[in-house]
C-alpha cells in the first residue's frame, strides 16, 4: 500500500464519523489551547513585568524606620536636598504622611469610614520621579501650595467614586474641603501612592500644621549605579547616625511577582497536561469503539490482502490525524486567547515558539499513544473472527 493511500484511508475513516471525530479533536484542541494560552499569557504578562523592571529598576526609597513604640520619626528636612546632590541621582521627590486626617466625600459619611486611604503631602516632582501618569485632570502645581487642591491616587479615586472630573468634585480631608484637580494612573512599584490623597506640603503646613521633614523620599539613580547609590543613602540622609532609615528598591516587588507568575505557570501547565491526558484517553476510547464497530471492515480488508501492519497503520494514522487536527485548532484557539488576554491586560503579545512546538508535539504524542492499543488490537484480530461479526 502506498503512503498516499494510507493517508486517504485515514481521512475517509475519520470523515465517515464526522461528529465523533470532531468532538474527539475538540478535546485535544481545548487541551492544547490551554497549554498554549497558559504559556503565551504568562509570557506576555512576564514581558510586561520585565519591561517595568527595566523602567522601574532604578527607583529607590528612603523611609524613616519605626521606633519600638510604633512612632515614626520624620526624616531630617535636609535629607532631600542632600540626596539630590549625590551625582548619579537623577530625580528625587519627598512625601510626608499627614497623620490623623480622615478622607471622606462629605460630612454625611461617618469619620470612621476613611476607606483605608491616607493623606500625603507631595511635591511637584512626584510624577516625574515615580514615572506616574496623570489619568485625569492635572497634577498639583505651584498654586496648590496656597489653595486646597488634591490629586487622588488611582485606588483612592475608585474608593471615593470619582471617575470623572468634568464637574468639580471635592473631598473632605479632616474638616476641610479640597478640590480634586487630578487622578493618577496606577503606580505598580509604589502601591502606597495608589491609596493616597495627595496635597501640597504648603497646604499640609497651613491647614494641618504639619511642619516636620518628609516621611519618605523616592529617587531615581543612574541604572548602572543603583547599588552604589543605595549604599550611601543611609549616611546621606542621617549624617549623625541618630535615627535608623530603611532603604528599599521597590522593583524587588516586581521580581517577586515574576517569580510568583512562574509558579502559577507550572501549576497551570500541569492542569493543561492533565487535560491533554484526558483528551488522549478520549481518543483511545473512541478508537477502541471504532475497532469494535469496524470488525467487519477489518476482516474484509484482511481478505482483500491487507497485512496486519496495514490495518495497524490505518487506525494509528486515524488517531494521530485526529490529534494533529485538534492540535492545530488548539494552537489557533490558544493564540487567539493569548491575544485577547494581552489586549485586555494591556500587555504586549508574546507567544513563545516553544509553546507552539510543545502544543503540537504534545498533541502528536497523545494521538500516537492513544492509537497504539486500538491499532494493535485491530491488527491482532483474526480475519475469520472479524468476518464472523455483524
Amino acid at each position: 500500500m502506498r503512503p498516499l493511500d494510507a493517508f486517504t484511508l485515514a481521512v475517509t475513516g475519520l470523515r465517515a464519523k464526522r461528529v465523533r471525530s470532531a468532538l474527539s479533536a475538540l478535546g485535544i484542541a481545548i487541551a492544547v489551547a490551554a497549554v498554549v494560552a497558559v504559556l503565551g499569557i504568562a509570557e506576555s504578562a512576564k514581558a510586561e513585568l520585565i519591561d517595568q523592571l527595566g523602567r522601574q529598576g532604578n527607583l529607590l526609597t528612603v523611609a524613616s524606620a519605626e521606633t519600638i513604640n510604633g512612632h515614626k520619626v520624620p526624616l531630617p528636612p535636609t535629607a532631600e536636598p542632600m540626596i539630590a546632590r549625590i551625582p548619579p541621582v537623577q530625580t528625587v521627590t519627598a512625601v510626608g504622611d499627614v497623620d490623623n486626617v480622615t478622607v471622606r466625600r462629605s460630612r454625611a459619611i461617618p469619620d470612621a469610614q476613611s476607606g483605608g486611604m491616607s493623606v500625603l503631602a507631595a511635591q511637584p516632582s512626584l510624577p516625574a520621579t515615580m514615572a506616574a501618569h496623570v489619568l485625569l485632570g492635572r497634577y498639583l502645581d505651584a498654586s496648590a501650595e496656597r489653595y486646597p487642591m488634591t490629586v487622588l491616587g488611582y485606588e483612592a479615586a475608585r474608593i471615593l467614586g470619582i471617575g470623572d472630573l468634568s464637574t468639580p468634585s471635592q473631598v473632605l480631608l479632616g474638616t476641610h474641603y479640597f478640590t480634586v484637580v487630578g487622578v493618577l494612573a496606577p503606580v505598580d512599584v509604589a502601591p502606597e501612592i495608589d491609596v493616597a490623597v495627595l496635597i501640597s506640603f504648603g497646604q499640609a503646613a497651613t491647614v494641618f500644621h504639619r511642619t516636620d521633614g518628609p516621611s519618605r523620599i523616592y529617587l531615581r539613580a543612574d541604572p548602572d549605579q543603583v547599588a552604589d547609590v543605595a549604599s550611601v543613602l543611609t549616611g546621606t540622609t542621617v549624617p549623625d547616625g541618630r535615627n535608623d532609615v530603611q532603604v528599599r528598591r521597590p522593583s524587588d516587588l516586581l521580581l517577586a511577582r515574576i517569580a510568583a507568575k512562574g509558579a502559577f505557570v507550572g501549576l497551570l501547565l500541569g492542569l493543561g497536561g492533565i487535560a491533554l491526558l484526558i483528551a488522549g484517553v478520549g481518543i483511545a476510547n473512541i478508537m477502541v469503539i471504532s475497532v469494535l464497530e469496524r470488525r467487519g471492515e477489518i476482516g474484509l480488508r484482511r481478505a482483500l490482502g491487507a497485512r496486519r501492519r496495514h490495518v495497524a497503520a490505518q487506525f494509528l494514522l486515524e488517531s494521530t490525524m485526529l490529534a494533529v487536527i485538534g492540535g492545530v485548532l488548539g494552537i489557533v484557539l490558544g493564540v487567539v486567547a493569548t491575544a485577547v488576554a494581552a489586549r485586555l491586560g494591556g500587555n504586549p503579545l508574546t507567544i513563545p515558539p516553544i509553546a507552539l512546538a510543545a502544543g503540537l508535539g504534545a498533541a502528536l504524542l497523545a494521538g500516537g499513544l492513544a492509537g497504539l492499543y486500538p491499532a494493535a488490537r485491530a491488527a491482532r484480530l483474526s480475519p475469520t473472527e472479524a468476518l464472523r461479526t455483524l
Partner: protein
Amino acid sequence: MSIPALQLSAVSKIYPPPTEVTALDEIDLVVGGGETVAVTGASGAGKSTLLSILGTLERPTTGTVRIAGTETSAMSDSQLSEVRATRLGFVFQQFFLLEHLSVLDNVATGLLYRGVPGRARRDRAAEALYEVGLASRIGHRAGQLSGGERQRVAIARAIVGRPAVLLADEPTGNLDSTTGAGITELLSGLAGDGTTVVLITHNAGVAAAMRRQVHLSDGRIVEDKVVS
C-alpha cells in the same frame, strides 16, 4: 495434468478448547482451474471453515493447503496476505461494503493492497462495474443501493484484480430468489473466463447452477459429484 487451483490434503481443523470442535476431519479436495464448485451441507457441517482455509484466512490444524501448487503452511501472515491480494477474491453474504464510500471507490478497494496506483484502480473498478452490469451506479454511495446491487458491487470488488479463484460464502443468502438467481448466473458466468469459483450455499437451486457439487457432513465430504 495442469496444476490444480486449490488442493487440500488431509486437512483437519480442530478449534482449541473450550469448544474443541472438529470442524473439518481429514479433508482431501482438489479443485482444477476454471471449475465451479458448490459446497453444501447443514449448518455446522464445516462449510465456512472449509472456505476460510481455502482462502488462507485460517490455517488448518493438520494437513496441507496448496494454492496454484504452492504450499501455504510455511508462509508468514504477510505472505498469506499477499496470496489473498493477488490470487483470491472473496464474496460474503453480508456484502461488507464501506457505506461512506462511492460504489466506484468500494470496488477500487479490491486493488488497494496490490500497490496499484489510485487512477488505475479506479479505471479498472469502472470496468469491473460494467461487467457486473452496474456501470450506471458508479457515482452512487453504497448505502443507496438495493441488496442485489450491493452484492454485484461486492462481486465487482472481488473480480477487479482478476483473481484465479473466487470464494463466495452464501452470496445469495440475504437476497430474494429472483435477485439471487441473477447473482448465481453472474458467478457461474465468471467460470467462462477461466476463474475458479467455489461457493457455499444452502440453496439447492444455487448449487445446481455449479458444475460440481460437494456435500459436507460433520466435517467430512460425503458426496462429490460433477454434473455434466
